[in-house]
């Protein structure tokens, strides 16, 4: 009881901090979209690609698959869901089969059929062509399909309108069964495009929930399942994955660290001692990031949890370094210069993250820097006030282990030689392998991305490897540019097909040209009379045809401003033609690329046409991110060196720098050896490890003037720090989320190397 009373201030402080967490969390915004982890664009291609990744039509597309039953059941569920979703108002497009086109739009498109349809060529209206069309019509009228044919047959015997609709659906490769899209499996497919932007995570999640609710409301028979993919699903799955990782890791590492500390300090109180600076540091990090960025990324928070392994160094160093009979506040004052130097150098090492160009990484950097500073300050000024002056009892380390470690400096020469060998070997192996796939950066679980790939493929959404784009001052110019580009590209023979906006809405120029080919009423009437000779058609039968063409010749071209009554046309057009800040952009999607180099050459001949090779361009973006990280890493390194030089003199500074450089070298050599591809996350984790390793080097070799007992105590403190760090980061390495995995693995390897090197390169003990 008496013992507990002595720790009362500590426990009260801890309770206050615990209560502060929910309050702070309520006031910050958590986000988890991938785009925070993409660098800023430097080229036109990169800017276009980033825009597409962040806001492109694909980011608003949800794909639902319904499977696990007979086709009839799946089709019924699909139809019921499509009806519910269509009425919900959340979606711009809901499609589950061949498109339904309403009467108003039919009337509009029918009136403009000759201007819009690629079938309307000048020789479609000669006597021979008309005769053929009339015979086909008569044949159809004899058939049972007669009621269907009557609707357009006499007004459009040449099939301009039907040809128009067919040219639209040309690219759909999904089979239709029972009136709905049915892929192999069988699996009914529904595509839904949200009205909300892809970046609006809340709205995207709402859209995904609406689809799940529509599925439940469709009363699916037992066994029938819903598969769902899209940004809304990605967002929640990513958040769930990060949350699950963080939860598992923090629980496990808490248990492991707690048991270790309990063993080392014979008291559960050490946990509370460690928790106070940790909690303060985490709070400081959260508040700083939210204050600067307006929100906190989920992964930044996950990363904050890993600070458990870094921040608990400080209270451990304080308690363990206390000499017998020394008051704890005197220990704090004694070790403060070293601690201050360590923290300052670590913060300097984290600075590059702030300038990396990845908002997500900048958040990580700020979080860690603010957290470290908060933890260090609370260790120096708060902990001595909260703890009894004698601190906590420390269990001695096993004699043999300490003995071995203290003798490590004798191995200095062979170790340095080995380091040089490793450096040469790594250089010969071509350096660390860099990751080139942007998917490696995504916090979205692998299985979810794989499902997305399958559904997209089944839904006939082309795997867009190459995107072409052209901008112009207005929509008409953009359409004209895409028409001429399409003509050149298709003629070049480098691609099998091309989807582009003018396929759906030809430029006014093209529409006028098509209409100008149409024969005048008198000519057409004469051709019709000649063509129907000998057929049972009455003289007036084709009056709608002749009148309709006369009307078409009078109509002004259909423009983008006239499409309010044409939702189906708009749905086809809008992903390919859009208004941007400074004009209009047309997007051209090639299909069946035969020769990318030849396509590139053909595209280069068209002025203003931008060709983006998505995969290659993504690689460039990532390289750029890594180059930036390296550049700022070098700056950070110089800052660290300067600080160390100022604190420890030239020789001492270099000694510590050698520990860090050696640890980094061993880390990347090990990552290379186990086949890891280096991402930006490994690099920034390396910066963090440098910060942690710094503590070890500084505290093991504080001045080189301490007696053996002091040295053993310092060594014991650092070993405790290292074990707790390994316990937390070791678990991170097992996470699936790439950022957590990369950080954990890198820091783990690095910390072990840094510790051993710090022991080896420490100044030789004063007495042999």
């Amino acid at each position: 009881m008496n013992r507990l009373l002595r720790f009362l201030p500590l426990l009260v402080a801890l309770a206050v901090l615990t209560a502060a967490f929910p309050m702070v969390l309520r006031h910050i915004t958590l986000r988890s979209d991938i785009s925070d982890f993409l660098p800023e664009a430097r080229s036109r291609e990169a800017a276009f690609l980033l825009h597409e990744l962040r806001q492109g039509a694909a980011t608003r597309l949800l794909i639902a698959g319904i499977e696990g039953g007979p086709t009839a059941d799946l089709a019924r569920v699909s139809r019921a869901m499509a009806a519910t979703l269509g009425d919900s108002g959340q979606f711009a497009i809901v499609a589950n089969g061949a498109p339904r086109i309403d009467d108003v739009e039919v009337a509009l498109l029918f009136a403009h059929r000759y201007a819009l349809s690629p079938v309307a060529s000048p020789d479609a209206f000669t006597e021979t062509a008309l005769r053929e069309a009339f015979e086909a019509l008569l044949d159809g009228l004899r058939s049972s399909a007669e009621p269907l044919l009557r609707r357009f047959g006499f007004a459009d015997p040449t099939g301009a309108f039907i040809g128009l609709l067919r040219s639209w659906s040309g690219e759909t490769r999904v089979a239709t069964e029972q009136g709905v899209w049915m892929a192999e499996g069988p699996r009914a497919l529904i595509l839904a495009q949200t009205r909300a932007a892809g970046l609006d995570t809340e709205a995207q999640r709402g859209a995904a929930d609406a689809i799940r609710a529509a599925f439940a409301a469709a009363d699916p028979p037992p066994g029938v399942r819903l598969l769902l993919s899209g940004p809304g699903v990605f967002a929640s799955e990513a958040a769930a994955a990060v949350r699950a990782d963080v939860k598992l890791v923090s629980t496990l590492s808490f248990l492991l660290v707690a048991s270790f500390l309990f063993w080392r300090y014979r008291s559960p109180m050490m946990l509370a001692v460690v928790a106070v600076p940790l909690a303060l540091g985490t709070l400081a990090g959260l508040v700083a990031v939210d204050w600067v960025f307006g929100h906190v990324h989920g992964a930044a928070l996950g990363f904050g949890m890993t600070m458990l392994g870094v921040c608990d160094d400080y209270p451990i160093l304080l308690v363990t370094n206390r000499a017998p009979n020394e008051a704890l506040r005197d220990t704090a004052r004694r070790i403060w210069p070293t601690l201050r130097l360590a923290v300052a150098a670590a913060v300097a090492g984290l600075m590059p993250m702030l300038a990396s160009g990845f908002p997500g990484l900048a958040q990580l950097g700020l979080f860690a820097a603010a957290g470290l500073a908060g933890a260090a300050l609370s260790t120096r000024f708060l902990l001595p006030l909260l703890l009894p002056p004698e601190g906590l009892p420390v269990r001695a380390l096993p004699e043999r282990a300490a003995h071995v470690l203290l003798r490590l400096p004798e191995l200095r020469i062979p170790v340095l030689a080995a380091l040089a060998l490793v450096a040469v070997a790594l250089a010969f192996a071509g350096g660390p392998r860099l990751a080139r796939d942007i998917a490696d950066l995504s916090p979205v679980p692998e299985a979810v991305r794989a499902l997305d790939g399958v559904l997209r493929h089944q839904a006939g959404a082309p795997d867009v490897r190459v995107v072409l784009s052209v901008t112009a001052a207005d929509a008409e110019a953009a359409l004209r540019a895409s028409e001429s580009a399409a003509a050149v590209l298709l003629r070049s023979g480098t691609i099998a097909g091309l989807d582009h906006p003018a396929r759906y809405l030809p430029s006014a120029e093209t529409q006028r040209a098509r209409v100008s080919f149409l024969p005048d009423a008198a000519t057409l009437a004469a051709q019709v009379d000649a063509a129907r000779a000998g057929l049972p058609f009455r003289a007036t039968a084709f009056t709608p045809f002749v009148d309709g063409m006369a009307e078409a010749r009078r109509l002004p071209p259909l423009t983008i401003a006239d499409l309010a009554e044409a939702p189906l046309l708009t749905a086809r057009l809008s992903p390919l033609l859009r208004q941007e800040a400074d004009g209009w952009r047309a997007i051209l999607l090639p299909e069946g690329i035969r020769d990318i180099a030849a396509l590139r050459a053909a595209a280069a001949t068209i002025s203003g046409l931008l060709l983006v090779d998505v995969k290659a361009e993504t690689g460039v973006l990532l390289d750029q991110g890594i180059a930036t990280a390296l550049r700022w890493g070098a700056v950070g390194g110089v800052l660290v060196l300067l600080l160390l030089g100022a604190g420890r003199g030239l020789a001492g500074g270099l000694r510590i720098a050698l520990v860090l450089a050696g640890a980094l070298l061993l880390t990347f050599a090990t990552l290379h050896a186990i086949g890891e591809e280096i991402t930006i996350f490994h690099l920034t984790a390396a910066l963090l490890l440098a910060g942690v390793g710094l503590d070890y080097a500084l505290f093991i070799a504080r001045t080189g003037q301490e007696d053996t007992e002091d040295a053993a105590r310092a060594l014991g403190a650092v070993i405790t720090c290292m074990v707790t760090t390994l316990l937390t980061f070791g678990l991170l390495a097992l996470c699936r989320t790439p950022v957590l995995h990369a950080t954990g693995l890198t820091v783990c390897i690095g910390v072990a190397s840094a510790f051993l090197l710090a022991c080896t390169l420490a100044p030789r003990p004063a007495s042999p």
Partner: protein
Amino acid sequence: MTRRAMLITLLALPSTAIAQDALAQVMAALAAIRESQARFVEEKDLPELDRPLTSRGTLSWRAPDRLEKHTSEPFEERLLVEGDRLLLERPDRGASQTVMLDTAADIRPLVEAIRATLAGDAATLRQYFQLDFSGDLARWRMVLTPLSARVLAAVQRIVIEGEAASVLVVETQGREGRSRLMATPLR
């Protein structure tokens, strides 16, 4: 309700009841036929044409919902309705087309006019048409007027005539054009 209106209702009741009775008898007789076949001749009279188009073939019915119209003249064609699916095949062109009746609100009533009659299913007929029945089991006539304004715009009425459990004439009056199908039961 005024006394006058009540009187009219009372007077009207017996004749309606008698017609209802005969309709029920006809429907019961039709429903009892599980399978039937008939030869047909169809004449289409379209205002755009100066002579009617004639086609011939066979009709096959199998309860509860399978109806096949096999045309042999002037060309081979098969129209098959089964459940929710309508299949139209032109073997000479290798062409076939499937329509799901669920998604074709304009076509479904035209199919049900014949299919529900053959099935003896007055409830389904009333779902899509106003049904006026006259005659008796020996010789009857039904006038079907579409309830949907959309369908009504294309088809004003369908008249079906028959004797006992046999459908003999199906006449469709459209806004433009008229078709008359005459069936001769086989067997």
